[in-house]
C-alpha cells in the first residue's frame, strides 16, 4: 500500500530513509582527501612537463622495454590464471572430495601473504639452487631472473582473482541447461564450449582483467625474482622506483602516467566487453 502511494508521487521513488546528507558528506570527504586529491597530484605534476620532455622519457629504450616486459608477462600470467582459475573454480563448485575446504582456503593465500615474502620465497624456489629451479637448471632452463620468473610471480598474485570471479557465477549456473544440451545430444566438449563457457565468459573476462591489471602494477613479488637486468627484466613499476631513488620526479611521473592510462584503458575495455556480452552475448 505504502509503496504504491510513493510510486504515484514520483516514478524514481521518494527518499524516505534519513542520513543521505551525512553518508554523502563522509563518503565524499574521505574519498576526496585520501584518494582523489593525491591522485590529482600526478596529473598536476605531469602538466608541468613539456610534451617533448614527456615523450623523451616514455620512449626511451629502457622505459619502453619496461612496459613491454610488464605488459607481456602480465598478459601471459593472466592467460595461465584464466585456464587454471576456471579449472579450480569448476573443481571447487562441481565436485565433492576430501580437502575441498582446505583447497578453497589456500586459494586466498596470495591475498593474505605479503608480496615481499612471496617474492623472496619464489625467488629461492626457482633459482638454480632451489627445489624447482634446480630441476629446470638440469635441462638448461633458467627461470629466476628471466621473464619466465616474472610471469610465475604474476601467476601467484593473480590466481585468486579469476577463481573468485568465476566461482559465484558457476554456483548460480542452472544445471538444466547442461542436462538439456546433453539430452539433445551434445558431447562433453560441445556442452562445455557452447553452453557453459558462454555463460561464464563475462566473469572469466573480469577475472582475467583483474589479474592482468594486478600483474601490470605488481611490484613486491616480482622485484626479487626479476633480477632487474636493464632492458631485459626490468618491470615498469621498478623503473618508477629507480627514478624516484635518483630524485628524477618528473621522469617517474611520466612513466607512472602512461602506466595509469594503460590500466584505465584496460579496465574500460573489459567493462565494456562485459556490458556488451550481457546485452548481446546471447544473440
Amino acid at each position, binding site marked *: 500500500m505504502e509503496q504504491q502511494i510513493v510510486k504515484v508521487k514520483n516514478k524514481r521513488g521518494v527518499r524516505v*530513509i534519513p542520513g543521505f546528507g551525512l553518508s554523502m558528506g563522509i563518503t565524499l570527504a574521505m574519498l576526496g582527501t*585520501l584518494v582523489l586529491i*593525491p591522485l590529482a597530484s600526478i596529473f598536476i605534476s605531469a602538466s608541468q612537463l613539456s610534451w617533448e620532455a614527456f615523450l623523451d622519457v616514455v620512449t626511451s629504450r629502457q622505459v619502453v622495454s619496461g612496459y613491454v616486459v610488464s605488459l607481456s608477462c602480465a598478459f601471459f600470467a593472466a592467460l595461465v590464471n584464466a585456464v587454471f582459475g576456471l579449472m579450480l573454480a569448476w573443481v571447487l563448485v562441481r565436485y565433492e572430495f576430501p580437502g575441498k575446504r582446505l583447497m578453497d582456503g589456500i586459494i586466498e593465500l596470495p591475498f593474505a601473504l605479503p608480496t615481499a615474502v612471496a617474492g623472496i620465497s619464489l625467488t629461492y624456489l626457482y633459482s638454480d639452487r632451489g627445489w624447482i629451479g634446480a630441476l629446470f637448471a638440469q635441462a638448461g632452463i633458467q627461470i629466476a631472473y628471466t621473464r619466465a620468473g616474472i610471469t610465475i610471480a604474476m601467476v601467484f598474485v593473480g590466481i585468486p582473482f579469476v577463481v573468485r570471479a568465476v566461482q559465484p557465477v558457476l554456483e548460480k549456473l542452472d544445471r538444466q541447461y547442461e542436462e538439456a544440451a546433453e539430452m539433445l545430444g551434445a558431447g562433453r566438449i560441445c556442452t562445455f564450449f557452447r553452453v557453459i563457457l558462454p555463460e561464464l565468459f563475462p566473469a572469466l573476462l573480469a577475472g582475467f582483467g583483474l589479474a592482468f591489471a594486478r600483474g601490470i602494477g605488481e611490484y613486491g613479488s616480482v622485484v626479487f625474482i626479476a633480477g632487474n637486468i636493464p632492458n631485459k627484466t626490468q618491470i615498469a613499476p621498478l623503473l618508477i622506483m629507480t627514478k624516484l631513488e635518483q630524485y628524477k620526479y618528473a621522469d617517474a611521473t611520466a612513466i607512472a602516467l602512461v602506466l595509469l592510462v594503460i590500466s584505465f584503458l584496460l579496465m574500460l575495455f573489459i567493462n565494456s566487453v562485459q556490458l556488451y556480452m550481457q546485452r548481446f552475448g546471447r544473440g
Partner: protein
Amino acid sequence: MAQKRQRTYQQDIVGDGILAVQKVREPHTEASGKGIRCGLIGICALFLFVMLVLPLAVVVINALRDGWAAYQEAVMDEYTVRALQLTLFTAVTAVAVNTVFGVFAAFLLSKFYFRGRQILAALIDIPFSISPVIAGLVFILTFGNVGWMGDFLKAHGIRIVFAVPGVVLATVFVTFPFVFRELFPVLNAQGKDEEEAAALMGAGWFTIFRKITFPHMKWALLYGVILCAARALGEFGAVSVISGHLRGKTNTLPLHVEILYNEFNTTAAFAVSSILVILAVLILIARTIVEWKKA
C-alpha cells in the same frame, strides 16, 4: 585451430547420434566422467601445491635452517620488533579508517539512488587497479618536497613523506575499497524496504542503522575487515616508495624483509617473513571461520 574444433564438433554430433540412447539413460555418471573428474582435481591440487604451498614451505624451512637460536635472534632483534609495531599500528589505523569509509559509502550507494552513483562506485574502486608504486608516488607528489603541499608542510614543520604518516596514508590508499567492496553487494541484495518501513514509522538514522542495516552486514563487515587487515599488513610497493627505509623508524615488516634479503642475510629475512606467514595463516583461518558463520 578453428578447423580442428569444427571437426571435433562434427564428430560429437555423429557420435552422439549413435550413443544418444545410452546418454539419455545416465548422462552424468559415465566412467569417462570419473576420469575427467579425477584428472581435474589432480591438476588443480598439483597447481596449488607448486604455486602456493611450496613457497610457504620454503619460508618455514629456511627460517629454521640455522636452528632455533638463530631464528629467535632474528625475530627478537630490536629493529624487527619495532618494524612489527609499526606494521601493526599502520594496519589498525588503515582498517579503522577504511571501515568508517566502507560503512558509510556502502550505506549511501545501496540505500539511495542519485545521479552519479555509478561514477562514485567506479571512483572508489580506483585504488584497486593502480600499481602500489604509483600509490606511493602520488603522496610524494602531493606532500614531498616537490609536491604542491610541500612548502606549506615544511613551513609548519610537518613531515609526511619518509615518516610514519606517509606510511599510514599509503596503506590507507591501497586498502581503500576493501571494506566497501564486501559490504556493498550484501546491502544491495538486502534492498531498502526494511529501512524505508522503519523511516516511515519515525526511526532516526542511527536507530535504523543500528537495528536494521548493521545486523544484515555484520559478517560481511568482519570479512572486509579481515581482508583489509591482510593487505595492510603485507603492503610493500606503496610503503616502499614513501617510507624512505629508515630502520627502526619507518620500516615496516615487509620492508625489513627486503633489507635483510638485500644484505644477503637470507635466514634472517626468512625468519622475519615467518612472522608475516603466521599472521597470514591466522588471517586465512579467521576468514574461513567467518565464511562458515556467514553461510
